[in-house]
Structure formats: C-alpha cells, structure tokens
C-alpha cells in the first residue's frame, strides 16, 4: 500500500541494473531529465555513473536531488539505516517515553516521509534558482537532519543551556515552570487522554494567558450541564498559573477539576465531543482511527480524497496535500504504475526510441 499511495500518478520504468544496455538507457533518461531524484545508496550511484557529479559534469543545468538517511558524506554517511534508526539519530525518539518504558516511535514509518517532503522543497528551491541563474545544482537531503524539527526544538535544549530534561509543566512544583502551550506539548501523556462513551479523547487542560480561555470554555460546558462545582466553574484558567504559584489554589483543587472532567466525558461520544469542540471552541478532540477518518464529512466536503485503482478495486487515498485557488494545485493524477508499465512510452517520448 506504500507503493500504491506514494507512487500514485507516476510513470514506471523497470530496468535491469546488471544489464549494461539497461544502465545505458538509465543514463540517457537522466541526460534529458530536468530533475533527477534518487535515494539509492551512494556506492551504487557511483558504480553506475549516476552520481550527481557525473550526471552534472556535462549538464550544469541539471538538478540532482539525493535523499539519504545521514547525507551524502560525513563520518556516518554509510551507516546502515531504517526508519527507527533515523528516528533515534535525529532526536524524536529519545524524549518520547511512556513512563519507564524505552522510548517509542510512531507505529508506522515516518522519518523518510519528512525527508521526502524536504527533498521536494529543496528541489523546488533549486528550480526557482535555476529560473534566475540557468544553473542546476545538487540538493543533498539528510533524513537525520529532517526529523530534528519533530522534537519541538527539544534537540536545542542543551545547546542553549536548558538543563531541565524533565520539563515541569504544572506551576508551583519543582521548577515552577508552566506549560502555557495550547497543545500541552510538555504535559505528561496520562494527563491528556480521557475515556469517552465510545472511545478516547485528547484534552489538555491548558492554562495561562495564551490558551487558558479554551479551558474556561470547557468548564462553561460542564457548568451548563451541572457537572462541576460552582467554585471550580468560576476559575479563570488564563490566570491559574499565578494562583497556583501563590498557593491560593492547590494541586488537590486541580485534581478535583480533573475528576469532574473525567466523569463528564464518560457520558459523551466522540461525535459529541467533536461538535462541542467546534461549537464551543474547546481544545478537546476525539482520537480518530482510519475508519473515523474515512467517514469524515469534512474531508469529503473539501474534496480531499483521490481515488486510484489497486488491483480490481477503487481505493481512496489522500488526494490533495494542500488546496489551491488560481493555478491548479497538487493532486493525485492516477494510480501507481505496474512494474515496467511505461517502458515503451517513456523510452519513445524521452529518447525517441521507436
């Protein structure tokens, strides 16, 4: 399914890299391309004469994008890699722990998707530069570097002298620092997951000036349905950090507020929570699986889906990574090719082969 989704809309040429004639064809295709993108190992590219230096020697206008786990060169460039290994090397793995268990990745591969999106951006930057200079260039993409962004700048902590590896998030305890993000980025997982009537809900009880208002909205909902004491319902979560630091409110009070939320959400379905999040402006969200996503009326109305044939079936895949007015935006244009499906037409159109 990886192939069916991410090769959708491409033409497919199958060649035998052990056959000199096929490799010669590959070099000829590269010689007429505007852009060459590859994630093949460096040693293989150099053996076949398909490395950027060779390809660009006679064609300085060519853009060569090379995607790899660690980059084209450097002390670890030839390291063996997998998605998990890159996730470890680039920073997102280590801080992501569930209690005392070892660090955790997302259950499906992600690292090279970040690198692929970066490769597309790097390539487009080179295309724009070529529009001015007429020259192409090499775009050398490192997946290890790509995933640093997926740590919310955690990778920079030591570099800027922040030595609190276990960031405290609730004011008035230990470091006294507050997680004032709206996302609860620095708040422990167990405090952000809640059971509801038919599944689970993600909810961070945000506090502070930037995002505390959303929590006020939540407690207004509880108060309306008599699910919380009047005293707690009257809290202003925008100034709660100060009240906790001053000792005016305690963490036992916070626990009481949480208990009210917990009991309340058990009476609501995912759909009700989603509706309330929209209608009442809450930072409270149903945790969707693939079936929920497929059934989303929002995504259908936005024309998000593309439909491609997989074997005998028509299958929906994400069709638009962004929606564009004016020029036609990016969209899935067809199914993924079968092995060698377009050998004849590509060799004819690109190389004039009869």
């Amino acid at each position, binding site marked *: 399914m990886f192939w069916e989704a991410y090769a959708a809309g491409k033409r497919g040429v199958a060649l035998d890299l052990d056959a000199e004639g096929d490799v010669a064809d590959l070099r000829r295709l590269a010689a007429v391309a505007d852009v060459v993108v590859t994630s093949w190992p460096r040693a293989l590219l150099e053996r076949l004469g398909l490395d950027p230096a060779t390809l660009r020697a006679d064609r300085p206008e060519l853009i060569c994008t090379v995607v790899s786990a660690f980059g084209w060169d450097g002390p670890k460039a030839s390291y063996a890699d997998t998605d998990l290994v890159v996730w470890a*090397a680039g*920073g997102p793995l280590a801080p992501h722990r569930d209690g005392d268990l070892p660090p*955790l990745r*997302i259950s499906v591969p992600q690292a090279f*998707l*970040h690198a692929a999106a970066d490769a597309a951006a790097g390539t487009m930057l*080179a295309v724009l530069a070529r529009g001015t200079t007429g020259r192409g260039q090499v775009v050398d993409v490192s997946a290890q570097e790509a995933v640093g962004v997926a740590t919310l700048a955690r990778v920079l902590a030591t570099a800027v002298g922040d030595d609190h590896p276990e960031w405290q998030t609730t004011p008035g305890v230990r470091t006294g620092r507050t997680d004032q993000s709206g996302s609860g980025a620095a708040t422990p997982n167990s405090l952000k997951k809640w059971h509801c009537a038919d599944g689970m809900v*993600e909810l961070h009880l945000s506090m502070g000036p930037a995002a505390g208002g959303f929590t006020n909205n939540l407690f207004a909902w509880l108060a309306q349905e008599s699910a919380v004491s009047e005293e707690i319902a009257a809290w202003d979560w925008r100034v709660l950090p100060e009240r906790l630091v001053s000792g005016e409110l305690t963490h036992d009070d916070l626990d009481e507020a949480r208990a009210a939320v917990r009991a309340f959400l058990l009476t609501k379905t995912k759909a009700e929570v989603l509706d309330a999040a929209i209608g009442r402006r809450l930072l409270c969200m149903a945790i969707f699986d693939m079936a929920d996503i497929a059934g989303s009326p929002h995504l259908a109305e936005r024309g998000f889906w593309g439909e491609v044939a997989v074997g005998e079936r028509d299958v929906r895949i*994400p069709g638009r990574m962004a929606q564009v007015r004016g020029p036609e935006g990016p969209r899935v244009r067809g199914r993924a090719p079968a092995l060698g499906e377009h050998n004849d037409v590509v060799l004819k159109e690109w190389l004039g082969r009869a």
Partner: protein
Amino acid sequence: MTTDALAGLKVLDLSWVVAGPLIGRTLADFGAQVVRVESSVRVETARLMQPFHGGVQDKEGSALFGNCNAGKLGLTLDLKSPEGQQVVRDLVAWADVVVESFSPGQLAKWGLDYDSLRAGKPDLVMLSTSIAGQHGPWSTLAGFGNVGSSLSGFQHLTGYADRLPMGTFGPYTDYVGPRLALVTLLAALENRRRTGEGAYIDVAQVEAGIFFLSPQVAHFGYDGTIAERHGNADAQHVPHGVFACRPEDGKDRFVAVAARDTSEWRALAVAIDRPDLAERADLADADGRRVAEAEIDEAIAAWTAGRSATDVEELLQGVGVPSYLAVNSDDYPTDTQLAHRGHLVELPHPTHGTTVVEGPRYALSETPGRPRAAAPTLGQHNEQVLTDILGYDAERIAVLTEGGILR
C-alpha cells in the same frame, strides 16, 4: 560566487506558534526578506514554550521561537486597530507572499483576507495554514497540532498495543504541515515566475497529517484494515526495537536496533555473542523471527544492558547492522554526523550573546541556505520596517507609537 535561491522575494509573515512560522523560516534561510508581525501584548505561544536559554522562562528566551523565526525582521503591531491593519495593507503592497495562521474567517473580519488583498494585487501568493482548512464543517475548529494529530490518526497510532494511546511527541502535524505547505508555496512561486499568476493556498494540518498516513488510509480503503499501534515493532523487520544500555551520569540510555534481512540478522546475533541464534533455521526469515521476537529482544537487551549506547551503535554498525544511539539534547550538539553537516548554527543574539538554531535540512550546492540572524526580539525592527521598507516618515511613526499601535 553564490547567490540566493530566493533573492529579492518579499514575505509578510502573519503566522504564529510553529506550523506557520516554519514556512517563513525556510524562505528567510534561502534569501527572502521576511517581515514578521506579532503582538507584544498578546505574546505569541511559542515565546512561552521550552526550551529556554539558561532554563529560564522568558519571552525572549525560547529556543523554539528562535528556531521558527531566525532571520526574520520583527514588527510589533496591534492588528485589532484600524491603523495597525493599514500598516498590514502597506506591507501587503510591498510583499510578494503573505503567510498567515489566524482562525479561518478572522482576516476577513479585518478586510485582510485573500479576496480583499488580491483586488489590488492580482499576483499575490497567499498561504493560510490552520487545523482543518479554510472551509468545511470543521473549519471553525480551534486548535494546535495536537488536535491535528488526533484527527489525522497519529494519536491512535502511537503507543503500545495494550496501553493507552501515547500520542506523538508534541503537536505532530505542526512538523508535517509546514513541509507540505512550503512545497506548494514554492511551486506557486515558480508558476508565478512563469505566468505572472498569483495563488491562494489553503493548508490544513489534519490533511497534511493524513497525507503522511497514506498507506494506512489505502489499506483501510482496500480491505477495511484499521492500522493499530504496536510499540516499536515493525510490519517488515524483526528484530526492531529500542533497548536500554548502561546508564550514564544517572541517566537512562537507549539504542535503536533493527535487522532488515537474514545477513543483518546473523551479523547481529553473532555480535551479541549468540551465534546459536544465528544458526537457527527457524530464525532465518522475518516471519520465523517474529514468532520468537520476545526471545530475540531479550537476548539483545541482555547484551546491550552492560554496554554504553555509543559502544553498541559502533559495534553493530561495524558489522553492518542498523543501529543508533537514541540521541538526546545532550548528544545532539556533539553528534559527529550532524556536526559534519553544520546542522546546528550559532548566531549572535542581542540578549543572550549567542543563540543556536537548526540549519536547513538540505544542502544546496550552488545556493545554500543558512539562518542569517537570530529571531527578532519583540519590536526589534519596527523602525527599520516602517522607515526603510514602507517609507514612513518620523512623524507618522510617532503617531503610531503614541497611539499604541506598535505594540
């Protein structure tokens, strides 16, 4: 001599937190002039988020904010005031590109939405980024990237099979949305270069996130399979896990280890002093190893437990087995591969002396990108933007200042 890929490009950045600002950050790295508008009264969330210089929470000390906004010019403005909105209109007249991340509909209330702005500027390229997009039943949904990661499926897909969903580290779609937004924006700029045509780009974090789960979407569409979380296990490779090593300085240390094929598996088994496992016929392929996964993981864990994570990485990579220390904040500045690529960049900072940001993730050989300066402090470039870019005279600036507009 190298030039800049985006030399001459002028960008007005009205976005905040992470998903929007990261777009302009890359544009600035590659030579665009980016003016970022923010409020010094309603301080933007990223300024309040870790990590902080010296570990001290301060609105001028967030390394997250610094990483998202390096190289931009900073203007503080009261966008709710008509005078502030007029400054934005003047900046739009100057700009080629506008990036914004207000709640859908907000800019229209101020007459600063795409339809209003393009009336006087048909070649404007404008990008809006939001949780669920500018139209549709969910478009008024408030939220940050953690809402995006719930609705796009990532929350459900991260964690152990027998435990609560753990969710991603931070607001995951904030890391995905801006990458896909940037590609689309750059394509729109290339289209404008060729045709003179502007564009409006509507990026939804939820949709961008789902794009990164396309295979799982396709699987459901094909036969109804609902992808589930399964710890660090992998659909193809066994073994595939994260193992505790010898603690260092009282801190837990871990290493990621995987084997992609039989030869890597056998090399691994020999390396961990278990040649008996290497020789076992039932473990020759991944299916067989999956049956014995617990036994294999135990053997690896027994071997890693007494060794340093760095030693494990080097020993295993030495025999061609995929492995890497689980790099933490302490390791990141000294990782030799990242250092070779010059990934971390030191920049002068008016408050902290120097600060550190991540460099670009792609090295362009002819027009390399680099952060040009630290992120702006609040209002740092008010004078420069209003005088040099907009040509306001001192009197006009004084009126804005006294009127409380430049806050």
